[in-house]
């Protein structure tokens, strides 16, 4: 599915991460990361975000990640939520749990 608008998910609370996806037409994934644990986990957070985007089939997007110590499971959840919000289509009854969402 195609990104149609800016999609945001998550909060700036501790243990959470806020993800913003903005549609672009070329240039691949342009990722900006801010994190309270960037020195220890920066690379891992980026890898987790990119892996989720790849599963979801996102090729081009501007991605802003504002992390406050989220676990991997939260990072994935927020990327997926931001993606489906950016796609703006009704997915009830069709979410691919265990497929692209995993």
């Amino acid at each position, binding site marked *: 599915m195609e990104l149609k608008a800016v999609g945001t998910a998550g909060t700036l609370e501790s243990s959470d991460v806020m993800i913003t996806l903005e549609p672009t037409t070329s240039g691949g994934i342009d990722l900006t990361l801010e994190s309270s644990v960037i020195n220890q986990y920066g690379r891992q957070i980026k890898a987790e975000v990119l892996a989720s985007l790849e599963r979801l089939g996102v090729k081009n997007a501007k991605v802003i990640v504002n992390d406050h110590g989220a676990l991997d499971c939260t990072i994935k*959840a927020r990327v997926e939520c931001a993606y489906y919000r950016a796609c703006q289509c009704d*997915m009830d009854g069709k979410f691919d*749990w265990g497929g692209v969402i995993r």
Partner: protein
Amino acid sequence: MSIPRPKPEKFRLRRTMMFMNAQKPGLIKDAYIYGADSIMLDLEDAVAENQKDSARFSLYHALKEIDYGDTEVIVRINGLDTPHWKEDIRVCVAGGCDGIRIAKTESAQDVKTVDEAVTEAEKEFGVEVGRTLLMAALESPKGVLNAYEICQASPRLFGVALSGGDYRKCMQVKVIPGGIEMLAARGHMLMAARAAGIQCFDTVFTNLNDDEGFRAEVKQNVEMGFDGKSLINPKQIPIVHEMLAPSQKEIAEAEKIVRAYREHASEGVGVFTLDNGKMIDIAFVPGAERVIKLAKASGIYEGDL
């Protein structure tokens, strides 16, 4: 990474069932450390309408990746009068939760509707059909009056719970110390659950500063025969566990009954008297066994039964 969970046990010990907002990562990651028998990850009232989508993604990954150990994981889904419940069921089943709490249950048909959607989801996601348990929350006079048919509506159903907030609103009453305003609902629901052979849970106590009031309510719950209680704060857990724990005297009595019954049964005797003159038959045995089970769960049993 995925944590495999054992097949849920329909009639396990459920003294404490603690609500957690499924949308809050800070809460759900530590949910199991508090020692509640069950946690209830909430997709319903704790989650704002514009975050219903977000909560499902959090829930899915939490179910898949957080090791909850022996803690039972129940999910409270949105009511059947909302557009959310079907997708809620899909994510619950795909994530492999132990059970689903149906909000605002008013009829046996409500339970059957959920049961069918759960079966469909189990087939879709390759989960053993019948694995996912159900419990029904009664939140209105209509739900309470229909308790008996609700209690018998599905083989997946392990229990019913009262939800005091909405019930009191419908009845136009407020919280009264002593619980006179809830007496009929509690009593009726307990009878229905026992008649149907399922468990029964009391509503939450929301004033966290009123320790004495909380203890009084738990004491009443125990005396009325509830299996457990819904909770909103971890500090309530040890209080319920302590108050549900049997006394040493009760444990000794239960042991005596179980042992004596086993001895007499092997000799073909069904009714006998204990040394204190009490007449015992098979009707006393399940209660005595329950006392032993509770004592074990409370960590105070030192015998060998």
